[in-house]
């Protein structure tokens, strides 16, 4: 069968109008439209609509950018995240095994150690549950009540980020005791059997940037935002966890 004989689909008509049709299908679609006036009419309508949208909003790109969006101004308002990262690196040298918890040394901000303590809790939970074959999670990702249940207990509208671009599929979640309130743990798995978890719980500290650390074969990225702390844990692969954290960051519901 030549390209021209493969039936033209509805999706291809849209793709044709949006200039997203593969070159080899162009002739087939044009022939179809020539032979089917109703479809040709619809396609013309879609093109006209495209033009209307661009006419109406296209010129916004030519407007001068308002001062409030000046990056230097926005940057000036940021907390000093670089200091936290440097302090974290120094503290790591003092941390003993899994018992980091709270540091008596008060030269360092308490906020930073609270999120490091959260990291420990999350990594412990990660290691514990990802080892499970039969019961790694409590409620499957396909069950509708997973998110409402965990959201209710943790106290914020939770959304399990979509990590399918990174080949991770949501297995499900469970409820855990967090430092001051319940915590949610979502677990994802890829085809190689690698597992990553996303841990979330209330954490009343100023917003922090994301800090990556490794500990005995597990890597983790922790951040705090809007009175909640988040930890992504997984294999000690920095670029992988940074990608997962970036994807989760872009999608999370709490903002």
């Amino acid at each position, binding site marked *: 069968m030549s390209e021209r004989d493969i039936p033209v689909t509805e999706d291809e008509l849209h793709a044709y109008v949006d200039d997203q049709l593969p070159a080899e299908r162009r002739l087939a679609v044009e022939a179809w439209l020539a032979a089917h006036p109703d479809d040709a009419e619809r396609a013309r309508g879609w093109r006209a*609509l495209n033009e209307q949208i661009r006419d109406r909003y296209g010129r916004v*790109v030519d407007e001068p950018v308002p001062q409030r969006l000046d990056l230097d101004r926005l940057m000036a308002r940021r907390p000093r995240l670089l200091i936290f990262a440097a302090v974290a690196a120094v503290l790591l040298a003092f941390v003993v095994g899994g018992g980091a918890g709270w540091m008596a040394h008060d030269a360092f901000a308490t906020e930073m150690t609270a999120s490091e303590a959260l990291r420990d809790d999350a990594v412990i939970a990660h290691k514990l549950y990802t080892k499970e074959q039969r019961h790694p999670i409590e409620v499957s990702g396909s069950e509708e009540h997973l998110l409402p249940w965990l959201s209710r207990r943790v106290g914020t509208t939770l959304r399990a980020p979509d990590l399918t671009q990174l080949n991770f599929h949501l297995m499900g979640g469970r409820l855990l005791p967090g430092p001051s309130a319940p915590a949610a743990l979502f677990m994802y798995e890829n085809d190689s059997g690698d597992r990553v978890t996303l841990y979330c719980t209330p954490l009343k500290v100023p917003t922090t940037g994301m800090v990556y650390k490794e500990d005995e074969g597990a890597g983790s990225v922790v951040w705090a935002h809007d009175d909640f702390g988040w930890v992504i844990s997984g294999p000690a692969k920095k670029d992988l966890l940074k990608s997962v954290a970036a994807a989760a960051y872009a999608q999370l519901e709490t903002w």
Partner: protein
Amino acid sequence: MNAFRQSIEAMIPALRRYARALTRDADIADDLVQDTLVRALRAERLFVGGDLRSWLYTILTNLNRNRRRSLARRPTIMTLVDTATEASGTEAEGRDIANALAALVEDQRAALLLVVLEGLSYREVADIQGVPIGTVMSRLARARAHVKAYLEEGRPALRRVK
């Protein structure tokens, strides 16, 4: 300013355009863009290559979804006041493209604008919306059908208003 920030700065006009079409209100749109920029700047250290454009559109799209959801949760009186600018146009305003877009379901509006106004590929839109390409196509088809119906429905009504 480093390369990461320069790339973000270069995206500001496009983000403003997308936000304006999504929300119809210039102030709300710039609020969204501002929130997007702040979050992107904070995550600088995470960004090792990857598609910055798609990432920025994803943040903005999700911020708008969250904003609309929290608006929907507020008591009725406040909702009417706050969404007045975004409500479907009255008969007197007529059925124009802005009102047609506003009448669409959020996901359909975002899909249509990302493709048509922002010129993104179906694959990129699927990544941004976190759905399969088939779902993007379905949202696109529905958006186009609904907008067409909305705009056509207006003509008899407009004649009466004359």
